[in-house]
């Protein structure tokens, strides 16, 4: 290539020399100069060529950088090293070539510096590619620093090129002047024409040759460029100011599915279609106005699928600073987009899920402190969409001052990795100035290469209601605790299925331990109970669980820590049952009734002592008076006094007996043993037994009605006691010669015994108090009739205990009927009858 160029040069030289020889060496000095200048000219051409090579080498570095950025393979990295190396070699060669021109030397040195800076930037690009991916690397490549370096490079090359051209022109001008001088000298010579012609031919030839060489060089350069860019998956092309494609890489052909000849030099609209062209026209125009443009578009690929393309247009300026076209780099980011979309969808999903739960969502960029707050987040605090700034400070400033430091510390501890999780409860000021309790939870979802947290997402839950409830509960608990402390009660709460029982502080205190709430199982609780009380407790418990008794109410002893026994009154009820009616939970209280029990015991002892101590002297009085009354020969007035004393002593005995009975019935101490009783026979016996008493009042007792055997399950002695009270009452209140009628009837599923007297009847105002203790219509009656005022109260207590009912009907002046009903006991009666029958036979 250079060889043929030199031939042209030599031709010119040969012509000149021939001319000079023809002139006879007259212009010896000029010849020498010409040789020198020709040599200088050749050097200029070499420098210019070297500059072109330099541009090409730099292009190769850029291409291989891009290849590496996209492909990121070891081979590409190696290739990048090689291109950088050859660029350095080219610059070194250039520096040697321009060694004789000071200005050019400086520029070569500057170029060396620029190449060094570029090498540094390549390194940065590879680092970026490693650490932050394609986009960051591409960003850097198209960034100011990188492009500035490029421009600097181009500027230097351009200046050198211009300088070399200038030098060339100066040299050539010198040659032309001297040629003209020579021509004048050889005007007359025929050889002049030949010489000029030869010279012109040489010049023309040289120019043609020059153009040819330049074009070949360009083609070569383009070939290299295409070769490099062809390996890049990005689409790269150059579009000139007329919107024509001037250069493209293989990826463009592949994307458009067009052969190269239908792309280059064709208008862009032809190449990519009018629709696509129209859609990027504004970007093209901006690029041609010198603006760097980036855009993303969805575009249908040749295969029909939709692709996302990311384009970067980098304007290309000529030396005058005018934009002559732009480089376009287009990346198919469909997959990245799909990944982004998937990520976005998944974020949408979790955001939706979180918001669906009523929570507000936040998404914070930790580096910039920008936070995206969800609509619900803002609404929770009373803000509309645009009223809450997307900054961390907006949140922080609204935290209650008393909570802020703690929340910030928690958050910081989490970000530093000291705390494994971030969850904080705090108050936040709403738009209207009120406070809401918020539970914030969050986690870092993205970290930098060094582990620096980059992004954190989380939720806000409005827990105001819960906090209020908790406060309310703790207030209630406090009240309850205070109440329990005062009452010395222990609360228990039993889970029936598991047998776990919760006991409040009072329980351990009661056992003589440090007061504390405990959970124990039923078995260990039972182990504390006095063996004599277990059966009774179990029976009560079973009845309550089964529902046969509405409440659980039992007294038992427990062994305390120091081995003493304490009496407990346990009271409770089933509070929930499952669908099948099985008890699930039971709660109640345990009260220490030891002191009550002690008082009870003392009372019993007292009564027992009193009764004994009263009875013993009374025995002497009753006995003595009884003997005296029947003694013969007493004065009549003495006898009257003795009788009064005897009657009153007898009344005192009855009173003591009745009081003891009431006390026994009251305290359940009187255990009535049930047995089958035939009421007919009982009434006959009762009438016989009480007739003597009735005789004192001149009253006869008559059984007027009796229907067959009437069996009840009762107690013979106790029923006799009831009858004695009813009959003696009837006798006392009947007029003399009257008849007290006793009836036995069976009706309405019950057996009824009634005692009717023809007495004055019970006054209406007294009726409600008939069965009260010590109740008598008027106190004079008591004295006159010799009653204790306890008889009917005892009757009612006994009948109640036997499961019956006692009542009366009375009208003033029309007598009184007392009656009691007992449930019949046919089965027992039958069994009893058979049993007796068996004994008889």
């Amino acid at each position, binding site marked *: 290539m250079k060889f043929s160029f030199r031939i042209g040069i030599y031709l010119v030289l040969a012509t000149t020399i021939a001319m000079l020889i023809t002139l006879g060496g007259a212009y010896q000095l000029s010849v020498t100069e010409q040789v020198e200048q020709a040599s200088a000219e050749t050097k200029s051409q070499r420098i210019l060529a070297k500059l072109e090579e330099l541009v090409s080498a730099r292009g190769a570095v850029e291409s291989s950088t891009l290849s590496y950025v996209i492909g990121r393979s070891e081979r590409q990295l190696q290739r990048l090293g090689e291109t950088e190396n050859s660029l350095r070699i080219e610059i070194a060669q250039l520096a040697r070539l321009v060694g004789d021109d000071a200005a050019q030397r400086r520029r070569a040195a500057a170029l060396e510096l620029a190449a060094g800076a570029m090498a540094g930037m390549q390194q940065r690009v590879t680092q970026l590619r490693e650490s932050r991916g394609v986009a960051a690397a591409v960003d850097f490549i198209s960034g100011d620093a990188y492009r500035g370096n490029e421009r600097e490079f181009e500027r230097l090359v351009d200046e050198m090129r211009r300088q070399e051209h200038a030098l060339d022109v100066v040299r050539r001008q010198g040659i032309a002047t001297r040629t003209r001088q020579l021509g004048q000298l050889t005007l007359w010579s025929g050889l002049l024409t030949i010489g000029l012609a030869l010279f012109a031919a040489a010049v023309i030839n040289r120019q043609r040759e020059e153009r040819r060489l330049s074009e070949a060089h360009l083609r070569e350069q383009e070939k290299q460029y295409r070769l490099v860019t062809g390996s890049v998956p990005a689409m790269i092309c150059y579009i000139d100011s007329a919107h024509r494609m001037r250069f493209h890489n293989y990826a463009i052909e592949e994307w458009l599915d067009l052969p190269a000849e239908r792309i280059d030099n064709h208008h862009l609209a032809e190449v990519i279609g009018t629709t696509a062209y129209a859609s990027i026209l504004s970007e093209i125009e901006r690029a041609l106005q010198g603006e760097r443009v980036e855009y993303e578009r969805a575009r249908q690929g040749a295969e029909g699928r939709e692709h996302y393309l990311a384009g970067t247009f980098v304007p290309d300026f000529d030396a005058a600073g005018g934009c002559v076209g732009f480089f376009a780099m287009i990346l198919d980011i469909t997959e990245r987009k799909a990944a982004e979309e998937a990520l976005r969808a998944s974020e949408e999903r979790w955001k939706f899920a979180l918001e669906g739960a009523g929570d507000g969502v936040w998404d914070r960029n930790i580096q910039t402190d920008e936070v995206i707050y969800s609509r619900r987040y803002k609404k929770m605090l009373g803000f509309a969409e645009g009223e809450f700034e997307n900054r961390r400070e907006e949140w922080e400033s609204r935290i209650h001052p008393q909570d802020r430091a703690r929340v910030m510390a928690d958050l910081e501890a989490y970000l530093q990795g000291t705390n494994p999780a971030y969850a904080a409860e705090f108050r936040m000021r709403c738009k209207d100035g009120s406070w809401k309790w918020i539970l914030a939870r969050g986690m870092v979802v993205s970290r930098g290469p060094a582990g620096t947290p980059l992004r954190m997402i989380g939720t806000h839950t409005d827990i105001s209601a819960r906090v209020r409830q908790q406060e309310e509960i703790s207030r209630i608990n406090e009240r309850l605790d205070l109440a329990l402390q005062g009452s010395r009660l222990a609360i228990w709460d039993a889970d029936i299925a598991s047998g776990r029982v919760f006991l409040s502080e009072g329980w351990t205190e009661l056992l003589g331990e440090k007061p504390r709430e405990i959970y124990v199982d039923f078995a260990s609780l039972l182990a504390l109970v006095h063996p004599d009380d277990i059966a009774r407790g179990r029976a009560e418990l079973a009845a309550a669980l089964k529902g046969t008794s509405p409440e659980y109410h039992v007294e038992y002893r427990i062994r305390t820590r120091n081995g003493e026994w304490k009496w407990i009154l346990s009271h409770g009820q089933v509070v929930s049952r499952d669908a099948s009616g099985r008890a699930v939970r039971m709660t109640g209280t345990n009260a220490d009734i030891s002191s009550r029990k002690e008082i009870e015991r003392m009372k019993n002892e007292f009564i*027992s002592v009193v*009764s*004994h101590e*009263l*009875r*013993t*002297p*009374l*025995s*002497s*009085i*009753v*006995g*003595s008076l*009884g*003997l005296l009354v*029947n003694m013969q020969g007493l004065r009549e007035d003495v006898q009257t006094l003795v009788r009064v004393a005897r009657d009153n*002593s*007898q009344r005192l*005995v009855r009173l003591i*007996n009745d009081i*003891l009975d009431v006390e026994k019935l009251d305290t359940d101490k*009187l*255990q009535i043993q049930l047995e089958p009783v035939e009421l007919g026979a009982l009434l006959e016996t009762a009438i016989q037994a009480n007739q003597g008493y009735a005789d004192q009042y001149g009253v006869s007792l008559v059984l007027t009605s009796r229907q067959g055997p009437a069996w009840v399950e009762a107690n013979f002695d106790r029923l006799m006691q009831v009858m004695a009270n009813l009959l003696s009452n009837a006798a006392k209140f009947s007029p003399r010669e009257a008849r007290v009628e006793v009836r036995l009837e069976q009706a309405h599923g019950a057996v009824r015994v009634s005692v009717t007297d023809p007495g004055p009847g019970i006054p209406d105002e007294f009726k409600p108090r008939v069965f009260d203790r010590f109740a008598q219509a008027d106190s004079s009656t008591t004295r006159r009739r010799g009653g204790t005022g306890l008889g009917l109260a005892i009757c009612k207590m006994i009948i109640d205990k036997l499961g019956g009912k006692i009542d009366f009907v009375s009208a003033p002046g029309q007598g009184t009927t007392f009656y009691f009903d007992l449930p019949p006991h046919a089965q027992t009666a039958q069994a009893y009858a058979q049993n*007796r029958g068996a*004994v008889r036979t």
Partner: protein
Amino acid sequence: MTQTLNKILLVEDDPDIQLITRLSLEVGGGYEVRVCSSGAEAAQIAAAYAPDMILLDVMMPGMDGLATMEALRKLDGLDQTPMVFFTANTQQQIRQDLLRRGALGVIVKPVEPSALVAQIRALWRRHRNPEPAA
């Protein structure tokens, strides 16, 4: 075994009750009554006296009624003698306990002289003609 009730041994520490009971039984019932003031005294004379029935107070200093009964039962000829208790204690449990230990009956103090005689007679009848077991 005697058919009629004639001799009664009364064991009672209270002198007033001793007097009244003795008079009640002698005057009202026409029985011959021998009085002892303690279980120990009763144990000394009971065998020789050979009563038809022994009436015992429950609460006595030294040997109480129950211990006295058990002591007397061991004496010759007294193992079948009916023993009746005399007590101011109305507690059912004590009453049942005494009956279970072999007492014929329990009479609750205070008691009218006539009622005492009536109860003694009834108990003697029951002793003579025991009811068939139900």
